[in-house]
């Protein structure tokens, strides 16, 4: 990533507490436009909490988040979504009662404007929107190669495919910033390779900025432009994969952990 790249999101001095427990302590870093930014760290390092702060699900007690030049203390999840932040979840959070296609279509909900009246009678914008957005959803489906299962209820899909559908749902929102919470957790080698390829393609094709949490160091090092390392809610290191890899504090933390 070019050094001159514009910053998309900055978190400054974020501290998040649950009751007396500190999940995050004074964490600061930035995400540049167009980069793949990894957040790594051992279990319980506060990675998911960090993402939850960014997209407004948790409200940090201290610190500020600047996104697209606007600084705020916190956002509502709805606002975050409408500002172009989409995400996937560590534990799959698909709409299990719906088909793959409907899940992806749901990802486009913010882009649809037809009135209740139009929807009730399925005319005008309701009709044209359904068709236009179906085409967009199909592009995402094609992109992620889930054509063969588009009408399958997601509950019937194997784990790896569910993860991919979740990514599809997030992509359908055409986000500026895509937050991926352990996109490769629980996958086998082949599935991981597929998912890595998709992530890189998303970044390259759509120019989407990606922040991802990942456990697997190898994957992170291959995928990301820059890495921030968290440990026990505090920032341990920040830099390119090579810098982070050779950072003594990181080595110590990881030697202590199982990875």
């Amino acid at each position, binding site marked *: 990533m070019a050094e001159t790249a514009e910053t998309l999101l900055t978190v400054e001095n974020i501290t998040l507490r649950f009751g007396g427990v500190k999940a995050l302590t004074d964490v600061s870093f930035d995400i540049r436009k167009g980069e793949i930014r990894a957040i790594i760290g051992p279990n319980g390092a506060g990675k998911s909490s960090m993402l939850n702060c960014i997209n407004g699900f948790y409200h940090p007690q201290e610190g500020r988040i600047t996104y697209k030049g606007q600084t705020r203390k916190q956002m509502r999840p709805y606002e975050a979504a409408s500002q172009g932040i989409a995400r996937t979840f560590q534990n799959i959070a698909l709409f299990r009662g719906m088909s793959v*296609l409907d899940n992806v279509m749901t990802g486009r909900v913010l882009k649809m404007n037809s009135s209740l009246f139009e929807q009730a009678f399925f005319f005008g914008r309701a009709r044209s929107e359904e068709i236009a957005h*179906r*085409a967009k959803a*199909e*592009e995402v*489906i*094609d*992109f992620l190669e889930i*054509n*063969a299962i*588009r009408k399958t209820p997601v509950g019937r899909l194997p784990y790896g495919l569910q993860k991919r559908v979740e990514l599809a749902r997030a992509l359908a929102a055409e986000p500026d910033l895509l937050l991926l919470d352990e996109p490769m957790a629980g996958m086998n080698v*082949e599935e991981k390779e597929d998912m890595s390829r998709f992530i890189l*393609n998303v970044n*390259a*094709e759509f120019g989407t900025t990606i922040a991802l949490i990942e456990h697997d160091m190898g994957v992170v090092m291959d995928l990301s432009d820059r890495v921030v390392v968290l440990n026990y809610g505090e920032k341990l290191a920040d830099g390119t994969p090579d810098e982070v890899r050779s950072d003594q504090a990181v080595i110590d933390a990881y030697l202590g952990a199982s990875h």
Partner: protein
Amino acid sequence: MPLPDLDRHDTFPKLLRHNAGARGNRPAMREKNLGIWQTFTWSEQAAEVRALACGFANLGLKRGDHISVIGENRPRLYWSIAAAQALGAIPVPVYQDSVANEMQFILEHASVKIVIAENQEQVDKVLSIKDRLPELHTIVYCDPRGLRDYTEAFLHHYDGVLAKGRDYDKVHDKFFDEQVDAGKGSDHAIMCYTSGTTGQPKGVVLTHRNCIKIGAMAIEFDKLSEKDDVLAYLPMAWVGDNLLSYGQSHIAGFCMACPESSETLLIDLRELGPTYFFAPPRIFETMLTSVMIRMEDAGRFKKWLFHTFLDHAKKVGERILDGKSVGLVDRIKYALGEICIYGPLKNMLGLSRMRIGYTAGEAIGPEIFVFFRALGINLKQAYGQTEASVFVTLQPDGEVRPDTVGKAAPGVELKVVEGGEVMYRSEGVFLEYYKNPDATASTKTPDGWVHTGDAGFIDDSGHLHIIDRAKDVGKLASGDLFAPKYLENKLKFFPNIREAVAVGDGRDFAAVMINIDADAMGNWAERRNIAYASYQELSALPAVYELMASHLAEMNAGLAKEPQMAASQIRRFLVLPKMLEADDGEMTRTQKVRRSAVATKYAPLIEGLYNGATSVYMEVEVTFEDGRRDIVKGNVPIWDVDAASGAMARAAE
């Protein structure tokens, strides 16, 4: 609707122009893309081809140049073929699953100037050999995904070529029509490389006249019309796809459809329900196997219904199909079966609307063949070759039999020469093997007869029977005829045998190496609670051997009754520990066994078959789909089979 005047519209570009005028608003091509069947009419198709041809011209494509299309069946690739033909250039389709080296041979041999590649995967392959292909100046890709960062100047996106072509067309608005008009029926239309079981592939040059004459013949033979639908799913590099999908749709004006992907093929087939369908036997075999496997799980009543009606269908179905007299009760029962079983089954397989189906390329198991025909599907056999622009023989309606490949097609002359080899002569006979006069001379006689390389005979009713490759027919030590393919085909008709390789030329007796069908046998083992960890383990199970031995005994009994074949009963067999794969060089890309390669690779096993060993240790390399390699090793058991009543048959002679 009668066919157009083929003397005037004597090239495919002219036919396209004709169709755009005569049936501009009818669908020419469909593609399952983004979830629906995107449809292109003849006039849209003509406009697209026009722009693309101009685009190619803009890229410097000249009359007589070769271009190559590489990829799955996609409208854009077919349009590229059409556009090249419009300019008088010759398209050379390449198998999309060939590796870079195989590709290099063809691209180099044909001096290909432009490659049209479907996607990144194909572009990467071509790029990896680009340095060795000095004549190749341009690569056009259809799907830009993953190619954004490719900066090579000779790499163009299809849309860009199209846009440039439109601009070009505006400036030189007479150019395209002049080019089309300049084409003649005797021009090279397409070049298909035959994979061949031995040696390097040969480029078969077919003219427009070849393709159009044969295509029109088959259309009239089966009364195809513009209302037919065909699904183009077989490799574009195979001449059959080119003639049946692309060629015949241009002549008859019907619509050809491309599936979404190979994964969704069966869904797409079911949705589309083609009326005219062409498939090699293995597709029908897979269908039948899957029907039987799926019915295994059905409830008792459903199974009973299924088998009752199926038995009935086997009894009268073909007679009804052939329009022969059948009793009223049987007809009513068959009609009931149509409602309960046959209709739904055809619907599930996507064959409901099928009027005419052909199977060719290999012998089809009589049971499979009869099964589909009994359901009321007009499945027929044909025999053909790339060198013949596909068709040599066809089975006329009402004369369909499982054991022949039909009568000489209209306009085709047929003869069997000394040594049993079949020869033919027709308007479809190819011009030449590209840059290979020796091969041309040895295949095609000066008066136009072509050696098929197949051994066979013509029976009293004029039907051709194919026994084997002429060069593969050998003799046992006893001097009796040994036709390995004949034996193998009989074995392959057992649904749980995937592939078989018979040996015995110059030996005392015939023996066979079997490849079991992983799906069918896996299912079989599961139902019997037989545990196994791998294909290798499954293939070595005594239970599996027992089953195979029983199949062989059954087959031997059958062979014993055929005077010419009684001597080649199988005495010993083994089950191969791995599937024969094209990636390991054991099969051709068209899924035919490479006999010599197998013989070399499995020499120790063949040795074991004849030295009386009860098992042989073997190590063999396997290539996985993703390119990784591994070694399969272990003991391969060898069993004996009794030669059933062969002695009696001989004694009776």
